[in-house]
């Protein structure tokens, strides 16, 4: 299940300093934290606040044997399966979204035994991160009990010492590296989001190393003016990458809506060309550019503006 125990994760953290120092760097520099065989937690969920600029950078690197975890997994994992970087997905659901049908990439890899999909319930995976974030080796819960998910995942049950209640023990999960996108951060890594937090807080606090990409790098005084919006403190962050539109084509709450037409094109390429459609996508949109800004340049300001406008319309004010 989990490679790093809570004691190892704590020992690692005790040895590791993440001080109040400038941590800004490029995505390529930050991604050096990822090594072959690592468990990489990808923040956000489905097509909301996915750290796409960081994922695209990860695709440029020649990694093997990665495990990916996420609450709900979208096409970013498909890309990492097809390049051969990842061969294990720990999640509760995988597809593009309700309107785009089954993930044919997932089917290809899992049904042939080329990759493993380790399935937990949504809360199950949330409590795995939470146990990790809390610094305990497990948390008790009523969910997943009796299901085949609990059986497949090799979970154990515990009995409450006060009530005798049978509970599922969900084991802590400590990603080696967590990739998180936020609305703003200062150079030290104090990071704020304006919308859903998804499971990012627990994932990052459970992880051994944390890379944050941000729509904007702001002055520390901006952070201090609204300290209750701060999702992660500097001492939970290793690297800060400036990445405007860093979730595109996924959404960033209040900034831009997901570009579902981009998904349509991607899914059509798979329908037409199978895995080669995915390879073409990666070639064109990822490897065809030196960095994420190059991809965004291709997308074009008009389309990004449109997505931004659509987001503004959904703000309740």
């Amino acid at each position, binding site marked *: 299940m989990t490679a790093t125990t809570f004691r190892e994760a704590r020992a690692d953290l005790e040895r590791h300093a993440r001080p109040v120092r400038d941590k800004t760097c490029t995505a390529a520099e930050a991604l050096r934290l990822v090594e072959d065989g690592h468990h990489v937690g990808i923040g956000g*969920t*489905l*097509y*909301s606040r996915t750290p796409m600029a960081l994922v695209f950078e990860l695709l440029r690197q020649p990694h093997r044997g990665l495990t990916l975890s996420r*609450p*709900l997994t979208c096409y970013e994992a498909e890309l990492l399966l097809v390049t051969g970087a990842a061969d294990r997905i720990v*999640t*509760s*659901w*995988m*597809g593009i*979204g*309700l*309107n785009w049908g*089954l*993930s044919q990439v*997932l*089917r290809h890899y*899992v*049904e042939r035994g080329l990759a493993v*999909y380790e*399935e*937990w*319930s*949504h*809360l*199950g995976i*949330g409590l795995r991160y*939470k146990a990790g974030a809390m610094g305990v080796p497990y948390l008790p*819960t*009523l*969910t*997943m*009990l*009796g*299901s*085949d*998910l609990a059986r*497949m995942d090799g979970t154990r*049950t515990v009995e409450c010492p006060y009530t005798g*209640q*049978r*509970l*599922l023990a969900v084991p802590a999960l400590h990603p080696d590296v967590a990739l998180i996108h936020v609305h703003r951060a200062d150079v030290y890594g104090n990071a704020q989001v304006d*919308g*859903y*937090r*998804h*499971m990012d*807080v*627990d994932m990052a606090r459970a992880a051994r190393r944390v890379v944050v990409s941000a729509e904007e790098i702001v002055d520390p005084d901006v952070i201090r003016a609204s300290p209750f919006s701060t999702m992660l403190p500097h001492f939970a962050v290793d690297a800060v990458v400036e990445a405007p539109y860093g979730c595109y084509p996924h*959404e960033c*709450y*209040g900034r831009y*809506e*997901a570009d*579902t037409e981009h998904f349509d094109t991607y899914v059509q390429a798979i329908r037409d060309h199978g895995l080669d459609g995915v390879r073409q996508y990666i070639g064109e949109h990822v490897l065809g550019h030196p960095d994420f800004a190059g991809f965004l340049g291709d997308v074009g300001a008009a389309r990004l503006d449109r997505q931004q406008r659509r*987001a503004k319309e*959904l703000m*309740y004010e």
Partner: protein
Amino acid sequence: MRPTPTEIMTVTASRLLDDDAVVFAGVGIPLLASALARRRQAPNLTIVLEGGIVGTHLVPGRLPISTNEMRAAFGAPMLTDITDIFLFAQRGFFDFGILGAAQVDMYGNINTSYIGTPDAPKVRLPGSGGANDIISLCNEIFIVTAHEPRRFVEQVDFITSPGHLRGANTRAESGLVFGNVSTVVTDLAVLDFDPESRRMRLRAVQHGVPVDQVREATGFELLMHEPLDELPPVDPAELTILRDLNGAAVGAA
């Protein structure tokens, strides 16, 4: 203006939702049914979505496709995170849970993981998402799905989301001491579970649907409730609201 099978089951599900209650809705039909209920008998129904949304108001024609996107949050008085919203469910705050099913068996167990076995899957389905949690943690659970023999099987290939497990008291014995999987809503019928054996039984047929048609669409021996009711047809007003809500965003849902 004839309702589609999807519309029939959406309307039927919506009628189960009482006013003043809190419903934890999955995306798609469950969310549509909940939104419809708010415009009909349950104006004070609170819709909760797994993205962490409490009391979404929704914009007709711009319904969300996922429960974690901006659209799902419109007009909500409270937004929190995913894990937190399921912990509300675990505490018992949510009166109803509604969810769909790729495959359901005679004990109300749901499979959204594998067609075939985990070792040799014929089809790897997307997985639980929040379904396992909704069915394990909400107070009363409604399942909404199309009535087809391939969906209604004697035993699911894999229990993604536990209904009554192997019947009788096996659900409670597993530790799932809360949550009653009470009702299955389809385009052909409404079904409940025998209080002793917890086997699925036919409670009512949709308007104009013969019992034999329900039996034929069910891949196991269906118990019969006495008496058996026939549901009223979809009201044109319900259909108008539903299509207005749906707009162009979710298509035929």
